[in-house]
C-alpha cells in the first residue's frame, strides 16, 4: 500500500478525486510490462495490444523482475501507482516461450491471472489494413461453445471482454463501428480433462469492418484482417477468490429499477390504485344504536335502572360506550 497523500492544493485534490471509486466507472487502464527476459514475438504482441488499448494504457519499456505466480506485491504497487485495473506481462524462457500473462486487479490487488503462450503470430505491421483511431470501442465476438460451458474459457472470456470493451457509453456514432475483435476456440475433446496443455488454443483475430451500401437500410459487412493475429495456448491460471469476485460484481443500488407498487392499469385503460387497510375488529363496530333491543328479558330491571341513569346524562353530548 502506498502512503496516503494529503492534498496540499486544489490541483492535487482534483487529481486524488479522479482516482476515487465512482458509481459508474471510467475505462480500465492497462499496464504493459516486460519481464526479465523477452522475445521479439512477445514484445511485438505486447506493443500491438498496447496500440489497440490506447489511450487507456501505459507502456513500460524497461524490464522488470516480476514473477506474478510467485509474488504479486510489485504488481499491486504498479497498479496503485498508475491507477491500473489490468496488466499484461510479456516474458520468454525455455519452459514457457513467448508468454503473455494477463492480470486483473480489484482495489489495486491482484484478483485473477491467466498465462497464455503465443503461436502463429502476425503483427499489425504485416497487414496492410488502415489503422484504427485510438480510443474507438470495438465490436467483440466470441465463437465456440467452450466459452459458455467450460470454466477456464469462461474466465478467458471475462478477461478479454473486460480488457477490450473500453468506455461505458450511452451513445455511439454509427460510423464508429470500425473494428471487431474475434475470439474463437474449438471444443474440448474430453470435457473432464484437467491438463491445460491439451486444451484447444484460443484464436485471436482482429478485423476492420467495411460497411457496404445495400438496397436495404442495413449495410453489408465485409471484414479485412488488420492484426494482430495470434493463437493462444492456455498455461497457468489463477482464478479469483469467491469473496473478492462477489465484492467486485456488486452493483450500485441506484441502478435497480423500482416499480411503482399497487398501481395498475385495468383493461379499460383507467389507472387503478390499491389501498391496503388494517383488519377491522368486528366487535368494536360502530352500528346504529337501538336501545330498546339492547338487553334481554332477564336484565330488564337493571335495564330500567340504567335507562334512568342514561336519561339523566342524555343532556351530555358525549356518547357512552355501552359495552
Amino acid at each position, binding site marked *: 500500500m502506498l502512503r496516503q497523500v494529503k492534498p496540499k492544493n486544489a490541483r492535487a485534490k482534483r487529481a486524488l478525486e479522479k482516482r476515487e*471509486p*465512482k*458509481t459508474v*466507472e471510467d475505462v*480500465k487502464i492497462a499496464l504493459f510490462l516486460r519481464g526479465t527476459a523477452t522475445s521479439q514475438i512477445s514484445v511485438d504482441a505486447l506493443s500491438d495490444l498496447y496500440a489497440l488499448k490506447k489511450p487507456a494504457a501505459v507502456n513500460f519499456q524497461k524490464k522488470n523482475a516480476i514473477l506474478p505466480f510467485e509474488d504479486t506485491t510489485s504488481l499491486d504497487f504498479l497498479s496503485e501507482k498508475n491507477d491500473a485495473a489490468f496488466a499484461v506481462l510479456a516474458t520468454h524462457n525455455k519452459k514457457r516461450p513467448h508468454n503473455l500473462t494477463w492480470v*486483473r486487479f*480489484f*482495489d*489495486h490487488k491482484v*484478483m485473477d491471472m491467466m498465462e497464455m503462450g503465443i503461436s502463429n503470430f502476425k503483427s499489425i505491421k504485416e497487414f496492410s489494413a488502415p489503422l484504427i483511431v485510438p480510443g474507438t470501442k*470495438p*465490436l*467483440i*465476438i*466470441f*465463437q*465456440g*461453445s467452450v*466459452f*459458455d460451458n467450460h470454466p477456464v474459457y469462461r474466465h478467458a*472470456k*471475462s478477461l478479454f*471482454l*473486460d480488457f477490450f*470493451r473500453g468506455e*461505458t*457509453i450511452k*451513445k*455511439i*456514432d*454509427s*460510423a464508429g*463501428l470500425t473494428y*471487431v475483435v*474475434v475470439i*474463437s*476456440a*474449438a*471444443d474440448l475433446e474430453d470435457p473432464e480433462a484437467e491438463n491445460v496443455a491439451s486444451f*484447444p488454443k484460443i*484464436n485471436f*483475430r482482429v*478485423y476492420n*469492418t467495411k460497411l*457496404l451500401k*445495400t438496397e436495404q*437500410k*442495413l*449495410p*453489408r*459487412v*465485409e*471484414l479485412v484482417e488488420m492484426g494482430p493475429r495470434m493463437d493462444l495456448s492456455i498455461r497457468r491460471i489463477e482464478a*479469483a477468490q469467491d469473496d473478492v*469476485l462477489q*465484492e*467486485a*460484481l*456488486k452493483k450500485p443500488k441506484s*441502478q435497480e429499477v423500482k416499480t411503482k407498487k399497487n398501481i395498475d392499469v385495468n383493461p379499460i385503460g383507467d389507472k387503478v390504485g390499491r389501498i391496503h387497510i388494517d383488519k377491522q375488529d368486528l366487535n368494536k363496530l360502530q352500528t346504529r344504536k337501538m336501545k330498546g333491543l339492547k338487553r334481554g328479558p332477564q336484565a330488564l330491571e337493571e335495564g330500567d335502572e340504567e335507562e334512568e341513569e342514561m336519561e339523566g346524562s342524555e343532556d351530555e353530548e358525549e356518547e357512552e360506550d355501552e359495552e
Partner: protein
Amino acid sequence: MSVHVEKELPLELDLGNMCAFDIAPVSKGIKEEQLRALARDNAQVLINQMFSLPTESTKDGLLLLLPDGTTPLPRAKPLPKPKPETRWQKFARIKGIAPKKREGKLVYDEASGEWVPRWGYGGKNKALDNQWLVEEGEKEAHEKIQKLKKQGKKIKRSRRH
C-alpha cells in the same frame, strides 16, 4: 449483396458492451478463411442488431443509443461509500433550502413571440430607451415600476434574515 444470415443457434447479444456470443461449436482444425467467413456472418448479425437500435440525429451524424450492458463484469474498485452530510447540507435539508435556480438570460416576449435577452445586447430592458414614440408620463410610470420592483426585492431579501 445480402445482409441476411442464417444461424443454427441464435447469437447471444450484449449490445451495451457491443458484443456477441456464438455458442455453436467451432471445428478443431478450422482454416483461416473459414474462421473469417464465420466471423463475417457473426459480425453481420451483430451490426444488423446494432443498426436496429433507437437512434438520435445530430449534425455530426447518426448516433445509436446503446442499452445497458448485460454481461456481469467485475469492477476495478469497490463501490463508493456514501459520504457523510456536511453541516451545511444537513441544515439546508432541515430548513428545506434548495439551491437557487438561475433564471437564465432569455425571457419570453409576448409582443414579438420570441425569446429575447433580459439585459445586454438587444436586451428588453433597453426597449424603452429606443422607442421613438413615447406617451406623456410613460417614462415616469416606467421608472416608478422599476423602483417599486427594486424595493420589493429588497424587502424580500431582508425578510429572509
